[in-house]
């Protein structure tokens, strides 16, 4: 229950922010918003002891019973880690943003988006139901779109937001298809139930497709190659957003999905190969590209891509444990998952700190370009210390937490190479070399952050603002993260025992309680440890490469490096726009008359075709009531009105004749003793006729159309055919009763719903969902009309200029 509520608290808070902002109108609003993630963090943290004991919590709001869709939340070790990251880093980011964003920004809007995003992320990690998870998943895409486009007057922000949304949402839709396939196989949407029963379904043909589609969702979200291109562009967002989205949350949703689905798909070799190789390649590609960046934020973006690749590849390696059954080997593979989870936490701490440092530099100096920076150590000692801690942790140096997880990463690779799984060819060795090279580049760019920015010569003429240390408040959040970076290094096992152990149990439900599933993290493995040797190698080669960067950077200008995925994406986008423009132009003529022709032709072909094809037109008049003279009269009146409309000389006549038709229908209802319908029809007719008369002013002059005789004949035929089909359809429906009439059910309306008026109980009780949505649609239509007409006149002449 607590967990279900905790998802909604950010959303509820988001509703109140605009009202609060109206009253305060200053950056103080941030302090109020800060309470939300803090409260949630404390609540979630209070679950740590019981989760560490192996307990899990579920809570279900029954929702759509018939489709098996319920709002079920599930708290286990895995979702707890992510929940703590989302709320913990979220608190720090909000604390940082209070000082970072100026009061002139529309802070109300900013915090609404941020809270929406936070709620959506919590929804993703706590949902047990696949459909609910999907809804929250896409909500993270939408809210991050809003966040990235926060400075929407900049063209680049809009481009970055659109790009990230296009890529992540299309991945999300693929994932939805995968979820539906899973449901088709297993008959349930609950992740927990699927984990239990999936063993029976691994041979189904859909299984592999479902896996690939789910992976597509995960890869697009966590920016794996070749979907990584959105992440650097997403850096157009304000820095607090970048720190939040790209260190702790949005991109980690993909990681979460892979971790969550490891018990489902992990036993499959396809999963193992795809996840580990995509991860390793992304690790390499990201780190290799990060080195050439001159914008510090872009550098961090590529570094995030690469670090996510690292975590992804570890999850891939770890999944092999499920393939092995209970054996010593499976425990060795499982260590990779342990390393992945550990690195996930570490990455959030050091990358969050680094993003904030870059934000401070940008804020205080007005530039993030490494080529302009230098010698800042003397002016900004605190910022420098934080940057040093973060970068060295990222490079995998002691005594920082990145060292521990980097060592575990190397160790897992070495172990995996020695096992038979990799004996096919030399894949294991290639993996090891690629990962090691990637680490070298990681070392190089980490050094760039520290040395090129803070050491060397200070060039005051190349920066835009005078340099000084950032205010205390802005340094507070990154300092906390930096302290964590060191703290985790010295006390890694408290995290290991309390957070990682239950998460491991969640990823490996079959191995739960196995000996050595949660290893003790130690910093020192002795001189013979291959991981240590690899780290030393990384430091030596990395230092050499950093020193001589000038001489080898030419490598970035040769062929494969200049192939640009971004260009391909843009070209595709333009092509897509052109194609859709072309096709739209084919049928969008701008004449209402043409659209009616399309609609009715389609109707004739599909409905008429179906009737003729199935031969299902039967006429059964035996049950019909006799037709009385009154009814003949009304029909006659309607027919006359309808026909004379064709020959009307003025628009006014036509409108009035149309009214005659409507009122005659109301009469019909009266004759058939349906007072509700008659009343409704009469009032609707009155109001629409009044509306029609209002629109009169805008319509062009009423003139007889001079169209060629062929068109007239064709239109006549279409009209005749459509009318015939409707009549045939009505008669056929009357003659064919495939099911018992359900009116008996509604006749009990007084017992069931306490109302004597059947029509009304149907609208208000039995089918209230329809009515509710109709009301909403009506409301949207009203607002639509209002904005179409009002804003057209107000906005004229003021366009948004690109800045």
């Amino acid at each position, binding site marked *: 229950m607590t967990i279900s509520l905790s998802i909604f608290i950010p959303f509820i808070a988001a509703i109140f922010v605009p009202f609060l902002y109206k009253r305060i109108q200053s950056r103080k609003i941030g302090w109020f918003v800060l309470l939300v993630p803090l409260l949630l963090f404390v609540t979630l943290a209070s679950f740590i002891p019981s989760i560490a004991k192996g307990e899990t919590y579920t809570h279900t*709001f*029954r*929702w759509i*019973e018939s489709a098996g869709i319920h709002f079920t939340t599930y708290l286990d070790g895995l979702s707890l880690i992510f929940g703590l990251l989302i709320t913990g880093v979220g608190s720090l980011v909000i604390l940082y943003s209070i000082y970072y964003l100026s009061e002139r920004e529309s802070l109300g809007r900013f915090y609404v988006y941020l809270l929406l995003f936070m709620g959506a992320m919590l929804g993703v990690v706590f949902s047990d139901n696949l459909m609910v998870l999907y809804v929250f998943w896409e909500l993270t895409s939408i809210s991050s779109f809003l966040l990235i486009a926060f400075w929407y007057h900049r063209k680049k922000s809009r481009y970055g937001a659109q790009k990230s949304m296009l890529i992540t949402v299309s991945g999300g839709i693929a994932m939805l298809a995968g979820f539906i396939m899973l449901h088709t196989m297993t008959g349930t949407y609950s992740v927990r139930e699927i984990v239990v029963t999936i063993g029976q379904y691994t041979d189904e043909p859909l299984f592999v497709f479902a896996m690939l589609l789910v992976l597509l969702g995960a890869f697009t979200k966590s920016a794996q190659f070749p979907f990584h291109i959105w992440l650097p562009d997403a850096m157009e967002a304000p820095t607090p957003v970048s720190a939040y989205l790209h260190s702790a949350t949005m991109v980690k949703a993909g990681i979460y999905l892979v971790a969550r689905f490891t018990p489902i798909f992990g036993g499959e070799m396809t999963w193992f190969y795809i996840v580990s190789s995509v991860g390793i390649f992304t690790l390499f590609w990201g780190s290799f590209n990060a080195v050439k960046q001159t914008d510090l934020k872009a550098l961090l973006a590529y570094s995030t891509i690469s670090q996510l690749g690292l975590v992804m590849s570890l999850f891939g390696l770890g999944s092999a444990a499920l393939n092995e059954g209970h054996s010593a080997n499976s425990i060795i593979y499982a260590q990779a998952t342990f390393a992945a989870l550990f690195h996930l936490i570490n990455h959030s701490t050091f990358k969050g700190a680094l993003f904030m440092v870059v934000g401070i530099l940008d804020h205080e100096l007005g530039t993030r370009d490494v080529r302009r920076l230098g010698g800042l150590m003397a002016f900004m000692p605190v910022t420098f210390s934080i940057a040093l801690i973060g970068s060295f942790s990222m490079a995998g140096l002691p005594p920082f937490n990145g060292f521990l997880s980097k060592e575990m990463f190397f160790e897992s690779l070495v172990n995996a190479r020695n096992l038979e799984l990799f004996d096919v060819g030399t894949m294991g060795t290639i993996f090891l070399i690629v990962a090691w090279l990637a680490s070298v580049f990681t070392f190089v760019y980490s050094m760039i952050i520290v040395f090129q920015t803070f050491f060397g010569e200070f060039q005051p003429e190349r920066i835009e603002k005078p340099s000084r240390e950032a205010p205390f408040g802005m340094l507070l959040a990154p300092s906390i993260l930096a302290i964590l970076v060191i703290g985790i290094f010295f006390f890694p096992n408290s995290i290991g025992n309390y957070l990682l152990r239950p998460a491991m149990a969640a990823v490996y439900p079959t191995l739960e309680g196995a000996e050595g599933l949660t290893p003790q993290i130690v910093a020192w493995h002795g001189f013979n440890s291959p991981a240590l040797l690899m780290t030393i190698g990384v430091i030596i080669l990395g230092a050499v490469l950093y020193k001589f960067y000038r001489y080898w950077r030419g490598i970035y200008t040769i062929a494969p490096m200049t192939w640009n995925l971004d260009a391909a994406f843009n070209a595709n986008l333009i092509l897509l726009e052109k194609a859709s423009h072309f096709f739209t132009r084919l049928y969008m003529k701008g004449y209402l008359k043409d659209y009616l022709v399309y609609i009715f032709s389609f109707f004739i072909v599909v409905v008429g075709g179906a009737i003729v094809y199935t031969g299902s037109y039967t006429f059964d008049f035996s049950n019909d009531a006799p037709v009385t003279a009154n009814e003949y009269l009304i029909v006659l009146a309607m027919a006359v009105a309808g026909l004379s409309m064709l020959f009307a000389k003025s628009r006014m006549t036509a409108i009035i004749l149309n009214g005659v038709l409507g009122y005659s229908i109301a009469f019909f209802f009266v004759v058939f003793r349906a*007072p*509700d319908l008659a*009343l*409704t029809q009469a*009032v*609707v007719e*009155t*109001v629409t006729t*009044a*509306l029609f008369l*209002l*629109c009169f*002013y805008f319509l062009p002059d009423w003139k007889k159309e001079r169209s060629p005789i062929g068109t007239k004949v064709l239109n006549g035929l279409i009209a005749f055919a459509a009318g015939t089909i409707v009549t045939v359809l009505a008669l056929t429906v009357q003659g064919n009763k495939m099911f018992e009439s359900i009116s008996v059910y509604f006749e009990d309306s007084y017992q069931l*719903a*306490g*109302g*004597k*008026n059947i*029509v*009304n*109980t149907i*609208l*208000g*009780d039995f089918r*209230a*969902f329809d*009515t*509710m949505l109709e*009301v*909403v649609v*009506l*409301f949207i*239509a*009203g*607002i639509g*009309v*209002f904005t179409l*007409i*009002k804003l057209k*006149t107000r906005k004229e002449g003021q366009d948004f200029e690109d800045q």
Partner: protein
Amino acid sequence: MKINDVILQTVTKIVVFIILTFGVELFLSGHNNPGGGFIGGLVLSSAFVLLYLVHDIDTVHKGIPFDFKKIAALGAFLAVGTGIGSVLFGKHFLTQAAGHFNLPVFGETELSTVLVFEAGVALTVVGVVVTIISTISEDV
């Protein structure tokens, strides 16, 4: 175009009240007799439409100073809100409840949550119809 139709204006003054009363009656009696939120709302809005037709927009706005967009929003909110309300009591979404109460003036009266839901429908209908008509006519 200047309209100054004294007879129509005088008649309207009386008729509007009859229509409004009828609309409320339709709305309230909806659950057991012909009527309900949708028709009630439509009848109410037809009264407003009549006012708009007879007087000009500014006069009507002075007399009825509501923002009809907000009324429509309130209606939609009520309709969705009653649905969520039942969830808070652990029932299915949109479950309605009814009960008989002995009220001081009305005597034995049936009260049900459907009434709130229907009120939402009615308010949305009124709000939307009047919004559409007044925006279109203001644009002239």
